């Protein structure tokens, strides 16, 4: 608020000060202005106006940033595939072309997350600690459905100031079958056939419905093996990379089977 310009507009006639008010009509009415002595200091008022009483405006700080990217997980009969691009961005800038979205929780379970990187990293630290404690207490690794439940609970702990992390969990359960779980930011989860999250999810989900869920198709349903699934995932990410600005650079795919994991790195468009 500019007090200087207000002071300059003040007119004086016969000892009385007036402030002109400019209107869209022809005449310019005035209002009388009196200067009183400032109040004494025993009521502890600060007379320096920090610009918030004369002309209030909203300052805002958002604790969240969106760092972009897309993750996809698909379950098969005796394997699961999880993939994520490796681009980290903020606004229109790329911060890194080589940051992984996948995190190994157990030799048979991987977590993929998109969203705010700092929340994702913190969530992973918390999960790692819990996994270590479980492994010390029970003398075995957590199986995939248990990890899924634990992640859901961990997210709900922060129900009223959530982790800005959109997760997919992929692994092989204790019976050897592929398992994929999808989550929202506050821990609601469900075991599904496939799951995609992140900025490119709307490009991938209908495609997965068609190819893997076999929706709207009259031809015979065939079981898809892990090699063919990897090719489908590569195609899907090429599509997402074309149409989504936050997805690209390169693609990291992990195939999880009962006896181990295989990591594949595949380049994407860097534009």
């Amino acid at each position: 608020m500019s007090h200087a310009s207000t002071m300059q507009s003040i007119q004086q006639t016969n000892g009385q000060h007036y402030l002109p008010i400019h209107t869209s009509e022809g005449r310019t009415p005035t209002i009388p202005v009196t200067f009183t002595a400032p109040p004494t200091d025993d009521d502890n008022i600060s007379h320096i106006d920090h610009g918030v009483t004369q002309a209030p405006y909203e300052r805002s700080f958002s604790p969240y940033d969106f760092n972009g990217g897309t993750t996809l997980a698909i379950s098969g009969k005796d394997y699961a595939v999880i993939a994520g691009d490796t681009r980290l961005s903020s606004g229109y800038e790329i911060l890194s072309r080589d940051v992984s979205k996948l995190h190994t929780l157990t030799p048979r379970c991987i977590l993929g997350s998109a969203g705010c990187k700092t929340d994702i990293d913190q969530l992973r630290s918390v999960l790692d600690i819990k996994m270590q404690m479980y492994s010390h207490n029970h003398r075995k690794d957590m199986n995939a459905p248990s990890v899924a439940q634990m992640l859901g609970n961990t997210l709900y702990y922060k129900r009223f100031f959530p982790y800005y992390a959109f997760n997919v969990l992929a692994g092989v359960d204790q019976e050897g079958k592929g398992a994929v779980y999808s989550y929202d930011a506050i821990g609601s989860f469900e075991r599904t056939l496939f799951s995609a999250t992140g900025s490119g999810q709307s490009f991938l989900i209908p495609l997965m419905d068609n190819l893997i869920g076999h929706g709207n198709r009259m031809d015979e349903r065939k079981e898809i093996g892990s090699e063919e699934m990897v090719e489908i995932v590569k195609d899907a990410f090429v599509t997402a990379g074309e149409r989504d600005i936050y997805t690209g650079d390169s693609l990291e795919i992990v195939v999880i089977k009962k006896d181990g994991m295989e990591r594949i790195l595949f380049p994407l468009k860097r534009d």
Partner: protein
Amino acid sequence: MSILEYNGAAIIAMTGKNCVGIAADTRLGIQAQTVATDFKKVFKVNDKLFVGLAGLATDVQTLDQILRFRQNLYELREERPMTPKVFSNLLSNILYEKRFGPWFVEPVVAGIDEAGKPFLSEMDLIGAPVYTDDFVVSGTCSGNMYGMCETLYKPDMEPDDLFETLSQALLSSVDRDALSGWGGVVHIITADGVKSRVLKGRMD
């Protein structure tokens, strides 16, 4: 809530080998409530040219009337049918006339020009055109449709393959959108004529 998402729509157009296809859903809704399942969004301009209009339903119908009027006038004066390029330009002009109070539609033009070459164009609500040679999409689930088309599209498809591709792309996209679906229609335009088919999909 955006005005363009008030009624719901999904339209895809794709090119094939000397043919084009245009597909649309047939839902008319008022926000969440579905009111009709047979609402036309794709209109024939002439035997080689179709236009699909996605957006506010009242503007879809009004623009259909305006475009038919202008096309009839053109054919009377010129004594020949309008080519897709000219029609697309006309539509772009009509939309820009209303620059500061626009028609709430995002149209898609699909046709075959005099030489038999396929033509596609898409516009935003104030007439900015985009000409592509593969596919164009418009509607409330455009992200879904872009993903499907980008993956399923191959250049130079025969009319029957084009029909299959268009149908799968449309049906899978609208199944993940609450505001579009409830039936679909596909038109395949070739030099010999137009073949229109109604799609059987999820009615939800």
